[in-house]
């Protein structure tokens, strides 16, 4: 049997690759797998710091649903942003701008996974968790991608709420409610996001300008962005110790939070001082890399304390 595919429509020949469909890894790439890993990790920590118990199978299925929901929102983001992805070197090789997957396919894939993930989480855990996941997907795909990203320099500040919600969903899975523990974790990720992204934006400012995205360095200028990076880092350092104050972060967490917070402030001051050439680039990349390590260390400490019996109370 000969397989046939439509290649010529009203608009003339379509790219052969897009009509034939992408390879399996291309569809996986649409889900932004590295973001999914971070979402699984932070949601898991949100689960373990919560008061309550969940059956392991339900917990695992819930984590899978949260990860797929996050992937679906990433897919919808790639569908909407394919035009700007095409003009930035960091994103030009993504499946849609590279012509390996059509926009329509990506939209269908993202919508299906969005609905499926919310449905599964609702059945596995509870309606609150499912509603929070649905809110996260809509917030990231619609509020951030379709509106904020191209409209305001505060795009990643407000949009950062979507990335900060997984621990809240994790707590909702376990306890059926939202408590102070996950709200503190939400606040930490929320305040961590601007200095993390703006460090990258400082060295990619030309690309963002070419794509027409109003990132902070393009709108307020690099000097203001550097000051804001320092400001957010100064806010983040004490905030990261809030889990200790609220009693769910122990000695290990306190040490990592203190050292890491001081590290964030030190790296941000380095960004503030190095304003030109290779030194500027190294300082910004250092800040970007350290911020990832910092967040990972904070959440790893909480996970280790709660899961491996390493918790030693600092207060009382």
């Amino acid at each position, binding site marked *: 049997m000969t397989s046939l595919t439509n290649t010529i429509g009203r608009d003339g020949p379509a790219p052969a690759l897009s009509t034939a469909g992408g390879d399996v890894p291309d569809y996986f790439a649409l889900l932004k797998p590295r973001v999914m890993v971070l979402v699984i990790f932070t949601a898991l920590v949100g689960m373990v710091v919560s008061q309550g118990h969940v059956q392991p199978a339900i917990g695992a299925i819930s984590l899978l649903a949260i990860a797929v929901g996050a992937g679906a929102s990433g897919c919808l983001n790639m569908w909407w942003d394919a035009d700007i992805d095409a003009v930035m070197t960091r994103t030009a090789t993504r499946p849609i701008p590279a012509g390996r997957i059509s926009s329509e396919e990506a939209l269908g894939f993202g919508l299906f996974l969005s609905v499926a993930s919310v449905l599964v989480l609702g*059945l596995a855990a509870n309606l609150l968790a499912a509603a929070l996941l649905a809110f996260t997907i809509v917030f990231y795909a619609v509020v951030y991608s379709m509106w904020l990203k191209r409209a305001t320099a505060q795009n990643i500040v407000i949009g950062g709420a979507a990335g900060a919600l997984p621990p809240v969903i994790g707590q909702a899975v376990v306890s059926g409610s939202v408590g102070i523990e996950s709200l503190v974790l939400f606040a930490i990720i929320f305040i961590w996001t601007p200095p993390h992204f703006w460090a990258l934006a400082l060295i990619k400012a030309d690309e963002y300008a070419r794509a027409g995205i109003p990132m902070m360095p393009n709108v307020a200028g690099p000097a203001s962005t550097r000051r804001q990076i320092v400001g957010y880092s100064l806010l983040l350092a004490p905030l990261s110790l809030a889990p200790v104050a609220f009693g769910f972060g122990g000695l290990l967490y306190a040490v990592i939070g203190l050292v890491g917070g001081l590290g964030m402030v030190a790296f941000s001051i380095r960004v503030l001082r190095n304003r030109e050439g290779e030194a500027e680039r190294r300082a910004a990349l250092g800040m970007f890399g350290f911020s990832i390590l910092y967040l990972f260390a904070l959440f790893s400490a909480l996970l280790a304390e709660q899961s491996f019996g390493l918790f030693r109370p600092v207060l009382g």
Partner: protein
Amino acid sequence: MPEPERQYRPLTPEEEARRRKRSVAIALALGAWVLLFFVLTIVKLGPQILSRPL
């Protein structure tokens, strides 16, 4: 006005192989989906699954 006639061309062997892999992946994903709902049902209902009026 009638639709203009669409023209088709055969898929290349490389495109066919890609489509086959995609089909297998969809089949596996559907299988996993069914298994997930089975596990979910058993875990949620537990022994109660057998306790129903006949």
